[in-house]
């Protein structure tokens, strides 16, 4: 990635020649037991998601007016820790906003994510695969959502879809969940120090990147229904 500081006086922000999302792929309906399942691959980061719902719920957890959404994220090695719990919360809040849970009161929707390989941008890969699994399960959704991660390195360049190595060397990592209707930010999770200007620039860049991801969703669903 080359940094081109154009006219440093006039432009506040540094430009990148081109920003790329790593190659991504997805597979839907790969598991036979869950109601919906999907696996999303971003570069080498792979996440598999299984979703059950609307299914029966324990009386202690049921909600009279909406479906109870539960998210479980399982790391590859070891027991789930605080980092997994915090990611689960991010994913859960994004899904609550996107799924029409009011249509299924007193039921539960359970989302189980398994990390297959983590090579950076894990939270955004989880969000993308969760959205594809929800579509595969035929759950009613208000809008689609996608996750985009960007990292701000020590020179101030904004790198899109960083690998694990790039994340380690950068001074801040920001993940945004963006909705499909108005391209607004649904959730943001940040780590590290950055200025407000850099924050706004990252949002704008991620919104642009979200376009490609939504187009990818459309193409893969189109391919799936191409035979019927």
């Amino acid at each position, binding site marked *: 990635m080359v940094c081109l500081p154009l006219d440093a006086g006039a432009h506040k922000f540094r430009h990148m020649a081109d920003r790329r999302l790593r190659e991504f792929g997805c597979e839907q309906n790969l598991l036979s037991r869950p109601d919906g399942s999907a696996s999303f691959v971003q570069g080498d980061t792979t996440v598999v998601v299984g979703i059950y719902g*609307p299914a029966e719920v324990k009386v202690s957890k049921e909600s009279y007016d909406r479906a109870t959404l539960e998210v479980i994220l399982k790391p590859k090695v070891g027991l789930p820790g605080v980092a997994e719990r915090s990611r689960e919360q991010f994913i859960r809040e994004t899904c609550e906003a996107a799924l029409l849970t009011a249509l299924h*009161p*007193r039921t539960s929707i359970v989302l189980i994510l398994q990390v297959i390989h983590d090579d950076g941008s894990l939270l955004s890969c989880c969000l993308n695969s969760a959205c594809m699994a929800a579509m595969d399960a035929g759950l009613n959704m*208000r809008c689609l959502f996608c996750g985009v991660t960007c990292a701000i390195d020590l020179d101030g360049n904004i790198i899109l879809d960083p690998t694990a190595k790039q994340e380690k060397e950068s001074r801040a990592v920001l993940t945004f969940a963006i909705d499909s209707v108005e391209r607004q930010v649904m959730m943001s999770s940040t780590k590290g120090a950055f200025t407000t200007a850099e924050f706004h620039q990252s949002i704008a860049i991620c919104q642009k990147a979200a376009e490609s991801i939504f187009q990818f969703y*459309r193409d893969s669903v189109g391919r799936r229904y191409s035979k019927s």
Partner: protein
Amino acid sequence: MSSTKERVGCVVLPGDVLTCGSELPEGKRDKLICGPGLRRDVDDVVVCKSGILRHKEPNLYWVDSQQTRYVPAKGEGVIGIVTAKSGDVFKVDIGGSELATLSYLAFEGATKRNRPNVQVGDLVYSQLIIANKDMEPELVCIDSCGRANGMGVFGAGGLLFKVSLGLVRKLLLPQSEVIQDLDSMFPFEMVVGMNGRIWVKSRSTQQTLIVANLLESCEHMTTAQRRDVLRRLSQNCL
């Protein structure tokens, strides 16, 4: 309305807006019936499931999506498995989020003294009379005139298996190609529940297994592929 008609047969995703009611002038607005997968959002019709947009004259639109999980809807005929007998009702599993209730009086010719012969684990084909998101679903095995009309306990000797809801809808079409093709092979009995459960029975175990496997796999096959498989099978069997 014209923009919606253009999108019939195309893939739509949740969040897509089909019509903008506010754009059309007052006089030109038509009535549009939203089927499954579409919902009304003030003046717009918004898609909430991913799938193909379908249209039926004059103004009915819906989204055809692939799904495994059944959500109970009133009036549908489903295959249930009796899980418990409690007092006057049977608790039946229909594959939804709650167990449905089936009163023992809801069978043809059943009275307080003449109880129907239903055991735990039996298969029952019944109709949903109450099925909404706020209440526990209820089933009956009689129609409005009090006749069984094909509903009730069944299942000895056949095989029950689960398929996706899309395939079930395809099978229940009046002129279903799949059924016509299979008919030409060998005779078999079939009960199709809208909750994705199918029961088949044929003359021998082997034939039943063949029919079951065919139905499970023809979901992702085109017509040509299916006919090809059937042809090869009939050559082998005969």
